[in-house]
């Protein structure tokens, strides 16, 4: 404990003292850490961040629902439903394989080009759809891992009790599977929280774009630092929560940590 504290203090002090001694520090400080620019732009950035929050708020539940459907589709065992399985596999392959940014460009610019009337051609709508499609592929894989981690004997037991295959899935498998993958899911949502900013590429002014606009208006990079601070204020608590959930899950399942 003492060693950890001392070594932490030494490293932090070293950075705080040494970095400003670099010959270019004055300029870096003026370009990235200008207090006046920071206070000038912070309110605007915070206002723009509200759009990120909104996109996140409507995308995240949609992703969970769609991903669950896909994960279950990949797990269907009836031969008649094989096409469903195939579709789910192709879906995850495609959307996990394409960078999120490309999905946003292609769907965000492509679909509205079909001639949809306003407001159905809104980049906010189609940008969110692109995010949902991309993230559902990742999250579906997490759910699938969770579903497959439930031991086969549990299904056998459920079926032998007379439960239907559907009942087995919803009452026995999924409750355990979801609980197990919650920490992993948190990771994906932290990542989503940042990728929401990519929607700005097709028009809407959210935090990242607002920071870019302010950077361009002021000729100074401080708005980027301010935007990073705002993102961190949200993602760090989420990360800590994910860690906590992971630790709890580990305690619950009886695994012990080895230093």
């Amino acid at each position, binding site marked *: 404990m003492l060693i950890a504290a001392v070594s932490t203090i030494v490293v932090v002090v070293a950075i705080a003292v040494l970095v400003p001694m670099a010959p270019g520090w004055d300029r870096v400080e*003026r370009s990235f850490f200008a207090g006046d620019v920071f206070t000038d732009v912070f309110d605007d950035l915070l206002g723009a961040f509200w759009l990120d929050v909104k996109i996140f708020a409507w995308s995240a539940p949609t992703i969970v629902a769609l991903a669950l459907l896909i994960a279950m589709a990949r797990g269907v065992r009836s031969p008649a439903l094989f096409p469903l399985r195939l579709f789910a596999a192709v879906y995850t392959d495609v959307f996990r394989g394409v960078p999120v940014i490309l999905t946003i460009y292609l769907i965000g610019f492509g679909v509205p080009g079909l001639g949809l009337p306003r407001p159905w051609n809104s980049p906010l709508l189609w940008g969110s759809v692109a995010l949902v499609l991309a993230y559902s592929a990742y999250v579906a894989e997490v759910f699938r891992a969770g579903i497959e981690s439930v031991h086969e004997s549990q299904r056998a037991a459920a079926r032998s009790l007379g439960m239907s295959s559907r009942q087995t899935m919803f009452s026995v498998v999924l409750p355990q599977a979801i609980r197990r993958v919650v920490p992993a899911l948190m990771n994906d949502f932290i990542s989503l929280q940042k990728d929401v900013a990519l929607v700005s590429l097709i028009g*809407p002014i959210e935090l990242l774009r607002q920071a870019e606009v302010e950077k361009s208006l002021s000729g100074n990079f401080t708005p980027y630092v301010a935007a990073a601070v705002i993102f961190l204020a949200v993602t760090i608590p989420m990360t800590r929560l994910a860690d906590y959930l992971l630790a709890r899950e580990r305690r619950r399942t009886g695994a012990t940590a080895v230093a």
Partner: protein
Amino acid sequence: MLRSRATVSLLLAAAAMSSIVACGDSESGDTTSASSTGSTSAGGSATTSDGSLATTAAAAQSAAECAEGKTLDDGRLVVATGSPAFPPYVMDDDPTSGKGFESAVAYAVAGEMGFDKESVEWTRSTFDQAIQPGAKNFDINLQQFSITPRRARNITFSAPYYASNQAVVGFEDSDAVGATSVSELRGLKFGAQSGTTSLGFIQDVIQPEQEAFVYNDNVGAKQALESNQIDAIVLDLPTAFFVTAVEIEGSTIIGQFPVDAGGQADEFGMVFEKDNPLVECVDLALGALRKNGTLEKITQRWMTGFADAPEIAVD
């Protein structure tokens, strides 16, 4: 000391702030605002030129004297433009040809400062590279950087070499066609290109009812226009001419705003490494070029023919 320097370098490199240079005291105090119009030159740095007062010959001489030893390499002037650079600022993306407004201005300024055509070298940079701290790989950077007081606090600008106005571009069947005053435009959905002063113009002068969208490039803006996500985009007038003629088929300039709409002209200045003493010499050169009519001639040569676009009044 040497070791700690090395550590610092590593730390900074890790933080992606790669360029560390020895530099003098960087005065970060407020500098004079660089928003003058007309022929008086007010740079973004504290050094204002008196080029407009000097006689042509004397100014030319002093610009050349002034520039001596102040460039990255003695006897050579490195000028940066955009990538790609587009007409009418640079023709055919080839700044060395001297064809195109900014290419011609750069060579004229270089000439005033005693650099012949062969001593001028071109490089490319983005806006971000022009404003990032640290050593620059150019002496002068010109690519339609608008001089604003806010920017001038963080970047060193030359005196203005062009005053531009903003224009509205849309398809010929756009709702905006025929608008003669800003109030007729307020109901429209606007788009702007990221990194331009046009977005500020939309927000401050047009003040539309719906928030504008922003795109990385004209291709994005074009797609949004075609998808009817936006009704019109705002660009500086010369760029608007290029965009309507070449980049966005079927688009037209719906109107142009007065040069001083929004309180002040959108003036282009060259960008220098913060507090680069060369700015003084460039201001002298620009003053001389303005005085002897060369700047006017270059402007006439490359930046005319825009006047036909209908005017939009600002209330």
